[in-house]
């Protein structure tokens, strides 16, 4: 009996036993967890969305109304007015994209329409889905309304709006959205 513990002989695969074979790659998986804060102004927006109400905030300098609201006007760099402005769930399509290509992780059936929607009373279009519409007929200036999820499924997320759909109103005048295209 011996007290000395001998390490087992190191056996490498042949291809690694020679230094003539360079290491071509290594894998070093890494993950870091974060708790994301959307911020005070976006938080107040998300809580109101959970109550089926869209809101915005106004810049005192350029008077633009932002949705989602921001604490600071990104154009002027000044603090927005503290008043929360209630906005309707109706707006105008300023631009759109018909998606015809399947891609990994896609939640929607093709074709579907992603649209920039200028909510009435706001100055920044919101991106959302457009459904209950023939994709061939989607166009700039189309008037649309939000279709909300069922009461029980409402939450502090824009997914509380299932999608937008045409509301049957005549097209908006070009001048009403020309600054947002």
């Amino acid at each position, binding site marked *: 009996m011996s007290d000395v513990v001998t390490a087992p002989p190191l056996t490498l695969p042949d291809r690694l036993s020679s230094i003539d074979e360079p290491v071509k790659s290594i894998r070093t998986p890494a993950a*870091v967890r974060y708790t994301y804060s959307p911020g005070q102004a976006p938080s107040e927006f998300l809580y109101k969305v959970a109550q089926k109400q869209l809101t915005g905030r106004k810049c005192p300098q350029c008077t633009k109304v932002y949705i989602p609201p921001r604490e600071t006007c990104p154009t002027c760099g000044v603090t927005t007015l503290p008043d929360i402005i209630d906005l309707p769930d109706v707006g105008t399509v300023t631009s759109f994209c018909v998606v015809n290509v399947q891609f990994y992780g896609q939640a929607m059936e093709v074709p579907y329409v992603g649209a920039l929607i200028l909510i009435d009373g706001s100055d920044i279009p919101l991106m959302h889905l457009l459904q209950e519409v023939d994709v061939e007929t989607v166009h700039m200036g189309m008037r649309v309304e939000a279709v909300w999820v069922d009461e029980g499924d409402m939450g502090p997320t824009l997914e509380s709006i299932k999608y937008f759909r045409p509301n049957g109103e005549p097209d908006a005048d070009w001048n009403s959205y020309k600054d947002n295209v």
Partner: protein
Amino acid sequence: MRDVAIIAFAQTKHRRSYEGTSEVEFLAPVLQEVQAKAGLEKKDIDFVCSGSSDYLAGQAFSFVVTLDAYGPWPPITESHVDMDGAWALYEAWVKMQTGKIDTALIYAYGKSSPGSIRRVLTRQLEPYYTQPLWPDSVALAALQARVGLDAGTWTEEQMAEVAATSRRNAKGNPFAQVVDDAEPATLLSKDYFVDPLRVHDCPPITDGAAAVIMVAGDKAKELTDRPAWIRGIDHRIDPAALGVRDLTVSPSAQLAAEKAGVADGNVDVAELHAPFTHQEIILRNALGLGDGVDVNPSGGALAANPVMTAGLIRFGELADRISRGEADRGVAHATSGACLQQNLVAVLEGE
């Protein structure tokens, strides 16, 4: 060399967490305050340069989003460094030397609260041999402290002395986070946190932001009675591989201090970016600061350590002290990387 001066400084009240507040929201008031202090508006500012790290927010290009706090319209000239804001200040200073710009706003922010800062900082290490081991920032500093203790370069008592002085000095700093009157002996009676470091040897975890405005030539004199002139500035780097370094000394800080001209005159005050107590001792030695130098009258990084920001704050604190007439010539220092790997040193002077 073109004369360049710091004429205004603003910072947040530093806290463990600005939870529920976005980077834009806690930075915007600082940017508004620094412009008001300088008496300048956006149209007067030629260049905006910032320092931050997307790894803190966990979002790629989050520094672009944060520009909303400034309001970059009409389009601005802008740059960003993934380093402490002191290096953004250096970039702006170089741009001023070219004569292309006369005014610059430099800001930095570090919101560590969304993630685990000790894990996040491992991501700045060399990626093949060190990063996969996840050696965290406190553990690496502990290795450095151990080397110095065993070599007799410093003692645990001297380290506690640094902490006690920082915390006491921070009593005069309304923006500081760790403030108290504890005696070194009391601090030493506490258990080790990461042996041989106790909690007082380590920086607090901080959310914070800061901004300075820097102006070239005669314009600085027009805007303020006593500008803090940058007389010398230089930054150097030690190897990334920790094993090849003697961790008890800082050759890069020493060289940067030589190039910046620290020894060319009397130093009244030094704001050193030393996140760990033993690192202040290393820096005092590297910069050749004698006992007569008032080191970190603000409390330094041991009193508030917003990552990517604490170095720029050293510039702001020193410039304010000079502008108030409380110092004539001082040294500002910033560090980045593990165990004081990168060091930036500047000499600031009143008239």
